Each structure stands twice: as structure tokens, then as C-alpha cells.
């Protein structure tokens, strides 16, 4: 605590928190619209979660329990670092259990366990503008959102189909929120897109370097863009998790040797550990006798 003792609760000064809080309220009122905010320099680099950290810092209080994940895991170094930051500056309770958290800050995943009313999911967003790779100019993309002119996005997706036979976007797959704004869900795999739809949890998105905050209130329609003849599909895995045997969770491929050997394990470490604690086993878990389950 000593090294940061001169900083405010949750690091940010009150004036900055008020500015972010005002932006959050507007973001919730206009689902999927990117609210510009005067993002501050944070003590971690831009691109490493400064937007998510600022949103969390503006929202968090002493009664909260915080979970931080990166790639679905609580123990990746950047997740550890951000969790330690809030322990140090806000002295809040932390957890790895999805169900026990009131605020979950995430990079690249939505937890497998369904979120509950009262939970807030804070996404770290690198490029908040879904149209940015089609049109690099902010002045232009802002106009496109204003006019609800999303033809370019459909053209891009359709070109994928023409060229590859598929929509070739696998993560950061664009969604339409409440029938109005096309929104970037952050670089989560498209596997997670359906979890955003009608979630009981509040979803907040913070992009620090790009200075934008946006939100999806609970029970809000979130539709992944697609075509009638090419409906949106999520990834499926041909095998269950090697540790907990879960089918239908998002898996990471772990390379086991240099001869092409690999295994697939849940990217959501809490989900996987929880299943193992309940006795579920995969074919490479500690007790192969139970793997038959």
C-alpha cells in the first residue's frame, strides 16, 4: 500500500471519476453508441487495459468483489497485474469465482457461466470502432453511425463469403445493438457473441487509448451481423476439454511437443476448475480412471 499511498481510492482523482461516470450514464442510455471521454494516462500502458481499468475504477466501491480475466484465465500475467492494482489502490475483495464477483473485468472472453443480475462485466477494448478497418477516419465513421449507414460492413462480410465461402471474421465479430448501432464486442471470439444478447448483467466497454466508453444494459438485444443464406455460427470444437471433459466451452489449444501433439483445454479457468472440483474429468486429467464419465 505504501508506494501508492498518495493516490486516491481506486487511483483516479474524483474529477476524473465524475467525468467517466457521466460518460457511463450516457453510454447506458444509448446502447452500443461510443461515448467520447477524456481518457487519462494510466500507470499501465495504453493497449493493456487502460479503458477497462478506468471504467472499473469509476464504478468500484468497497463492497465490491472483483474478478479479472485475460483470455478467460485469472492467472495470466496482465490479469494478475490489474487485479493487484485494484487490491493495492482500492483494497477491494478479489475472487476468481465468476459467481462470487460483482465486477468482472475482462480481456478477450466472456465467462462460460451465465452472468447474473447485479453483475457488471467490464471489457477492455483496443479498437472500439467496428468500422475502423473499413474506414480509418473517425470523421467518416462517425457520420456512418449517425446515418445508420452500415452497408460497408455488410459488403465486407459478403466479400469474405465470396472469397472464402465463409464470413472470415472469427473474433471481434460485429453486432447490432437494439436494432440501431453496429458495435465492436472487443476481440472476444465470436463464440461469445450470443452471451451478450439479453444478458442479465450490465456490460460496460472501455477503450482508453481511443477514448471511448460504450455499454449494453441488461436484457438488451444484441444480434451478430449475418445473411439469410449465411447465418451467424459460433465455433465448435471436435473434442471436449482434456481436463474437465466439458463440451461446448471455448477451448485453448496447448502444444504438448514438437511433433504436432496438442491438447484442448477450457480457456475459462474458473469454469474448468469448478467442473473438476465437482468431479468431472477429461482424458488428460489427474485421474484418468474417471475420464470415462
Amino acid at each position, binding site marked *: 500500500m505504501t508506494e501508492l499511498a498518495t493516490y486516491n481510492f481506486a487511483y483516479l482523482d474524483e474529477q476524473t*471519476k465524475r467525468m467517466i461516470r457521466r460518460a457511463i450514464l450516457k453510454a447506458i442510455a444509448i446502447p452500443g*453508441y461510443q461515448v467520447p471521454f477524456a481518457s487519462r494516462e494510466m500507470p499501465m500502458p495504453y493497449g493493456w487495459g487502460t479503458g477497462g481499468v478506468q471504467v472499473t475504477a469509476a464504478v468500484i466501491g468497497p463492497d465490491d468483489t472483483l474478478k479479472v480475466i485475460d483470455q478467460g484465465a485469472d492467472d495470466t500475467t496482465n490479469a494478475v497485474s490489474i487485479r493487484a492494482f485494484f487490491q493495492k489502490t482500492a483494497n477491494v475483495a478479489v475472487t476468481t469465482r465468476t459467481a462470487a464477483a460483482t465486477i468482472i473485468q475482462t480481456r478477450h472472453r466472456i465467462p462460460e457461466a451465465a452472468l447474473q443480475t447485479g453483475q457488471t462485466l467490464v471489457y477492455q477494448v483496443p479498437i472500439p470502432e467496428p468500422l475502423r478497418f473499413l474506414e480509418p477516419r473517425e470523421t467518416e465513421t462517425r457520420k456512418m453511425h*449517425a446515418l445508420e449507414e452500415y452497408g460497408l460492413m455488410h459488403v465486407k462480410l459478403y466479400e469474405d463469403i465470396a472469397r472464402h465461402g465463409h464470413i472470415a471474421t472469427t473474433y471481434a465479430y460485429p453486432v447490432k445493438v437494439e436494432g440501431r448501432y453496429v458495435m465492436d464486442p472487443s476481440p472476444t471470439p465470436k463464440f461469445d457473441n450470443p452471451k451478450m444478447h439479453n444478458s442479465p448483467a*450490465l456490460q460496460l466497454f472501455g477503450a482508453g487509448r481511443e477514448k471511448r466508453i460504450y455499454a449494453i444494459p441488461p436484457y*438488451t438485444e444484441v444480434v451478430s451481423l449475418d445473411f439469410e443464406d449465411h447465418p451467424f455460427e459460433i465455433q465448435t470444437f471436435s473434442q471436449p476439454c482434456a481436463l474437465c471433459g466439458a463440451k461446448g466451452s471455448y477451448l485453448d489449444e496447448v502444444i504438448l511437443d514438437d511433433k504436432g501433439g496438442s491438447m484442448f483445454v477450457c480457456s475459462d479457468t474458473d469454469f474448468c476448475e469448478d467442473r473438476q472440483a465437482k468431479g468431472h474429468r477429461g482424458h488428460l486429467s489427474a485421474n484418468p480412471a474417471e475420464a470415462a464419465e
Partner: protein
Amino acid sequence: MRAATQVFEGGFSDAVLNSQEVFRALMDAMANPGRIMLVRDLVNAPAPLTPVMAAIAATLFDHDSTVWCDRAIAGSTAAMGWLKFQTGLKLTSDPSGAQFALVHDIDVMPSLEAFAKGSSEYPDRSTTIILQIAGFSGVEALTLEGPGIENATSFTPSNLPKLFIDQWTANRATFPRGVDLVFAGRGALAALPRTTRVSRGEV
């Protein structure tokens, strides 16, 4: 003399944690339209400011916020002195240029149309109107639907701006432009963001 000292008193006893608490109530209210969020008495402001309205002001306003106050509030030297001292807010007499509005007398307030609705490129540059009401157990029920609401919910504010359903329908019609409302009742608050669809009657 009393008015002068009042200005310096009655702010949050713990500016950091109190404002966090009030903000969470506001955030949850905005995310769950029509849900009644309890707010403790955290400030003591001169009349006609009520503890909830004053706590919202102390939570959200500072010298970067432009605020319009209705005649009942603007006419009270003590209330205005308190707001200025506690928040440093910038005042405006033009509701269409306000980020926030404080309305004590809901019956004689300007129409929602008079406030800032933002532009289609920046719909966030709109007014959040904070309305003083007696409470949330009014006789006339409204049905709310839209983002933040699972299916539908009932909302029974004790009073509403005139011709509210018509005004609100007009506000919704300009989406994403529009105003957002926060109702400050006794010991509680609730919100109606511009996305909420309102109709008469219970769910």
C-alpha cells in the same frame, strides 16, 4: 447569516465513498429503467434541494458540467450557493445548452423538447434531467419496456411532467437523440433513459 454558513455545510461526509455509492445507484437505475434504488441521506442541502437531488448533484457535477436549474431552485440564494460551493458547476439559463437540469416544480417545467437532445453524430451531448418527485408509490401506473427491462415492468412515480406519454413518445421518436430522466424521490431514485418505451397502465 444562516444561508451563508449553510453553503459550506451539508456536503458529503466522505466525498470519495459517498459519491461512489450514489453513482452506483444512478448507474443501476439507468441500466434498469423504473427500478427504485434506495439512497441514504448523505447530504444536507438548503431547501428546495432535497437530500437525494443534492446528492445526485454532488456526485455528478463539477466545473466541467453545465447545469440548468428551474425557477424554484435558481430563485433560492441558499440552494444556488450550496450547489456552486459544493460542486463548482457552470450555470446556464438555456435548457437547450445544459448537460444536466434540476427541476423542482415538475408541473411548470419546460417541455422535454426545450432541452438538449444531442446531435445524430453526438447523441450523448444531451440533457440528463433530474426531476424532484414525492415518491414512487403514485396512483397511476406506467408500463415500461426496452433495454434494461426483462419483458416489462410497472413504474408508479407520484407525479410526472404534463402530457408525459406524448412528450416521451416524441422524445423516443428522435432516438438516438433525446433526453434522459432521473427521478429523485424521498430516499430513493429511479431513471428513464431515452430507450424506454412507456405506456399507460400496469403490466
